[in-house]
């Protein structure tokens, strides 16, 4: 009994540490310049960050705790909390997770393989670039995990056909896996539908009365940046992972033969592609009127109504806990803004730098980029934006540029397994280790931040006045 209790303590130590620290701060005298509700929001943020990073309790439990503590801490009324849990960005998260299930089950991975191989030929470098660019372009519309889930088996099969000797194809496997991961990560900030964090930021900017960013406007900000980063990423990957193979003639032929056996596109697959094109067009032309999330849900409805996917399958494959957690994190983000906690935090953080940030404007953006990158590599992208977004928007410069910067930098989870969905997926193959992420991740993260800062300084201000 005592041992079972001690085991529970050892497993839940971060929950207990968070509870003790939060209790101490809750009962300590509150600092000047912040309301009681604001100060308690910060305490709640601390608890949530510790629990998300440590996973001391299941995700849905964190989401429930956010709602409970918002009311218990007198941060907001129960009805206000309930309302803040549902929004268009939560609809988008829900819809995109369900769409991923619907799309992955259509068997389009074989088609995608044939397209890539017909474009690349049999050379290793060309195939790497093919995986990289196709992942990037498709992810920018469909979402990271959908594309990586579809391409992962293709890559692993190609590697397996190259050689059964794991050592012989280790570098080749890493090169291809990182190609789809990096392509997907870059693509994920290219459009609002590329990642949940983009939708969250659009909603924050709109709710805080700062800007209405349309789908096309977002692309105008981010797509050129994505395209500029792409050759650097591909080059760095090919320099970091050097397989002994130069051409994969036999493996590619075997793969072609395997996917060629699947025959022509069937009606179901054509309908599936047609629906996705419809959804994509609706995102471009209608999302500023009816919302990106509503369109995602409409897409799920089409797939369900046409019988392309069963509800039971969507229900069992969708991680509802993630939806609930994002809902909670967005709700907390809104309260950080509403109670003035976000502003108080940024004011104190900025005071550390004195007038330095006013004198050197770029430093402000460097700071936001670096902080976001660090948090993302520990906590995961969308949750970081939900919690950090309201704080960084208040960082003293142009709030829209700061918000956009936070959303884009939150994609820079190149250094750790937990920094991105794509990274987590390729690590689950057992071929990639933590050191591999650092091997190329550190260099590219620095470069990506530099390019982002350059875009903020020299390209985005032009768009601010033009759009």
């Amino acid at each position, binding site marked *: 009994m*005592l*041992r079972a209790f*001690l*085991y529970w*303590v*050892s*497993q839940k130590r971060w929950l207990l540490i968070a509870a003790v620290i939060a209790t101490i701060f809750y009962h300590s005298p509150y600092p000047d310049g912040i309301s009681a509700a604001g100060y308690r929001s910060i305490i709640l943020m601390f608890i949530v960050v510790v629990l*998300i990073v440590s*996973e001391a309790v*299941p*995700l849905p439990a964190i989401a429930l705790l956010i709602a409970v503590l918002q009311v218990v801490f007198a941060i907001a009324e129960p009805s206000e909390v309930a309302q803040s849990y549902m929004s268009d960005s939560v609809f988008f998260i829900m819809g995109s*997770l369900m769409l*991923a*299930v619907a799309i*992955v*089950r259509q*068997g389009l*991975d074989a088609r995608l393989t044939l397209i890539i191989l017909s474009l690349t030929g049999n050379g290793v470098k060309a195939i790497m670039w093919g995986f990289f660019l196709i992942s990037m372009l498709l992810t920018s519309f469909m979402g*990271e*995990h*959908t594309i*990586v*889930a*579809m391409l*992962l*088996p*293709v890559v*692993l*099969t190609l590697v*397996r056909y190259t050689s059964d000797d*794991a050592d012989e194809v280790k570098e080749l496997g890493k090169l291809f896996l990182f190609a789809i991961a990096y392509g997907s990560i870059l693509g994920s900030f290219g459009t609002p539908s590329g990642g949940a964090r983009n939708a969250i930021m659009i909603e924050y900017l709109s709710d805080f009365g700062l800007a209405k960013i349309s789908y096309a406007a977002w692309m105008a900000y981010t797509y050129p940046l994505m395209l500029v980063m792409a050759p650097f990423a591909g080059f760095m990957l090919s320099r970091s992972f050097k397989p002994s193979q130069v051409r994969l003639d036999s493996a590619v032929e075997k793969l072609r033969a395997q996917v060629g056996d699947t025959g022509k596109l069937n009606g179901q697959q054509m309908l599936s592609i047609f629906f996705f094109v419809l959804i994509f067009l609706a995102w471009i032309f209608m999302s500023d009127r009816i919302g990106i999330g509503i369109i995602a849900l409409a897409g799920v409805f089409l797939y369900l109504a046409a019988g392309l996917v069963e509800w039971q399958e969507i229900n069992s*494959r*969708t*991680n509802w*806990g*993630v939806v609930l*957690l994002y809902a909670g994190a967005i709700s907390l983000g809104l309260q950080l803004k509403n109670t003035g906690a976000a502003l108080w935090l940024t004011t104190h953080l900025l005071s550390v730098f004195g007038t330095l940030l006013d004198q050197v404007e770029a430093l402000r953006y460097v700071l936001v980029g670096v902080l976001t990158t660090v948090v993302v590599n520990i906590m*995961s992208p*969308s*949750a970081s934006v939900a919690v950090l977004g309201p704080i960084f928007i208040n960082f003293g410069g142009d709030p829209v540029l700061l918000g956009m910067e936070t959303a884009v930098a939150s994609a820079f989870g190149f250094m750790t*397994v*937990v920094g*991105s*969905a*794509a990274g*987590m*997926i390729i*690590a*689950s*193959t*057992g071929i990639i280790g933590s050191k591999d992420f650092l091997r190329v991740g550190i260099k590219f993260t620095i470069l990506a931040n530099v390019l982002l800062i350059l875009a903020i300084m020299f390209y985005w201000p032009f768009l601010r006045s033009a759009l």
Partner: protein
Amino acid sequence: MQFLVAIRSTIYSARTLEIATSLAKGFKADLSVVYVGDQPKELLSEGVHLSRDAMLNWQIHHPGVEVLRWAYKCMQESEFIDPEIEEFDPTDLVEDAGRIRVVVPQADGEKVRLILREGETVDQLKKETEYRDYILTVVGGGSRKRLARRLVQFVDTSLLFVKNYDPDLNYKLLLCVDDSGATRRAVSFAARVAYFLQTEIKAVTVSKTKKFGPGYTAAANWAQRYLDKTGVSYTHEFISGDPVKTFVERAGSDHIIVIGKSLSSPIANFLRSSKPAETLLKANTPVVLVK
């Protein structure tokens, strides 16, 4: 009698599996092989599950299943299981008690079980040892302080840490005899292993002072009587000095250390490291902690 061996990869777990199979043969025990893999972070887990579903359509299996397939082949090669039995079907998996079990062709009854778990190592091994009545758990490594301490404290079976194991060495056993409650079981375990490996036991009783209390001498006498009865070759020494340091020095790299698991209070073990746990951390050779 059931043994459990935890494996992680085809590269690093070969020796762990080899020693576990040899011991299971010697003790005529059934052997469960458990692969404990990392669990994807919950916030990002949906993509991992989707990709695994997609991979099944391409006949690509969970990396853990591939490691278990390798373990199965190793056990066939070492003739722990019949080499003539066909290989298992990697798609024939059964989910029970929060783990996945590979359905194995059972010509040998339930002699071998292959289990796939995901999550934190200590948590998964604890759950597995609570699910079935294992006598011994065999794990690799033992150098990572926190992991080793938690395994010793929370996995409620005897534990063999396959640390720096060299298959070409002819290991002797270093048996630590003291007044702890687990010493008798350690002596009996060591005798059985020595008999099976046809090796000798070097028993030591170490006291921090020059005096050896009645508990120590009684334990040493009992051990000598027991070892005489079993007929295994052994020596026994009384040594004054730091117990952990002495065990580690005497064991060198060519002895397997056999020591009783600490039976002191769970709170004491939780707050500070026990003598067996410290020995494990400092030794450069395999260590068995007998419960």
